[in-house]
């Protein structure tokens, strides 16, 4: 990423790109291919190689973000299930009857539990830590965790959108540089073939 930053530092700061977002470098939009190549001082093949490398880096970051998104998307229904259980326990509190539930002891083996009236629940906080909370505290803690998870997911989705835009810009730039090169070769070919014809005649 350091070499890439050095290569693009010679270009004028264009207001059309956000330079970066949370560590993801922004892709510079190229107004004119010829000016871009002369500004960066790269020949066509080096420019294409640089852009391809950038594309690979973007893909790597995309993989990482997608994995994080999958984790969060699995975590949110989990927290909602916990909230459901706590809500059910609280509802049962008033009635005075115990809650009977079948739970999994081991794969395929279930056992019956009788959950008496109680005021507290234990929440698994991770890292082998479990804490006892009152039902209200548990509900507010779980709600807060749910809010945080949803907020993180939103930020992550925005990051992914930004990243995908940069990928699209880079892909279009690669196509344009390549096409420009093909166009240049064609011009050179027609001019050399016409000068060859002149010299023969």
């Amino acid at each position, binding site marked *: 990423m350091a070499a890439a930053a050095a290569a693009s530092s010679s270009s004028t700061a264009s207001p059309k790109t956000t330079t970066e977002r949370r560590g993801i470098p922004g892709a510079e939009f190229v107004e004119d291919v010829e000016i871009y190549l002369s500004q960066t001082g790269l020949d066509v093949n080096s420019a294409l190689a640089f852009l391809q490398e950038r594309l690979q880096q973007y893909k790597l970051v995309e993989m990482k973000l997608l994995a994080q998104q999958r984790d969060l998307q699995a975590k949110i229904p989990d927290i909602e299930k916990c909230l459901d*259980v706590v809500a059910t326990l609280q509802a049962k509190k008033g009635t005075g009857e115990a809650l009977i*539930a*079948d739970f999994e002891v081991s794969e395929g083996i*279930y056992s019956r539990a009788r959950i008496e009236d109680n005021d507290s629940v234990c929440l698994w906080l991770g890292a082998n830590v479990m804490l006892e909370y009152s039902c209200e505290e548990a509900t507010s803690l779980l709600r807060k965790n749910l809010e945080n998870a949803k907020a993180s997911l939103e930020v992550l989705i925005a990051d992914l959108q930004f990243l*995908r835009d940069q990928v699209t810009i880079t892909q279009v730039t690669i196509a344009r540089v390549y*096409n420009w090169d093909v166009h240049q070769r064609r011009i050179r070919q027609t001019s050399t073939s016409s000068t060859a014809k002149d010299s023969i005649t």
Partner: protein
Amino acid sequence: MIPKGTGASETDVTWEDQQNINKFGRLNNRFHELEDEIKFVKETIDNLEDASNELILTDEDVVRFQIGEVFAHVPKEEVETRIEEMKEVSSKNLEKFEEEKESVVAQMGELKKVLYGKFKDSINLEED
């Protein structure tokens, strides 16, 4: 879908064009996400339908209803109510997703017109 050039035309790509292409990409992604969500919600609704049908057939008064990771013993009427509620929520979600999908498809159609209008053959906006 990558916007490719045939190399024949020398159409300039302006920042506005780039932004349209980006927007099309975002919409296309959202379209696929919505299709997956809709499929998932439809499955949920089917499962709830099956569950309520089974419920009618059963002659037990107490049903083991999954709450969190455990199956709580819940009276049949309460289970019926809960399933109805879950079906309501899922139907509303389905409606919301279908509406969003229609809007996304419409926007993509508009952008296609604009982009094909400018770039004609130099751009490919179809699914591979």
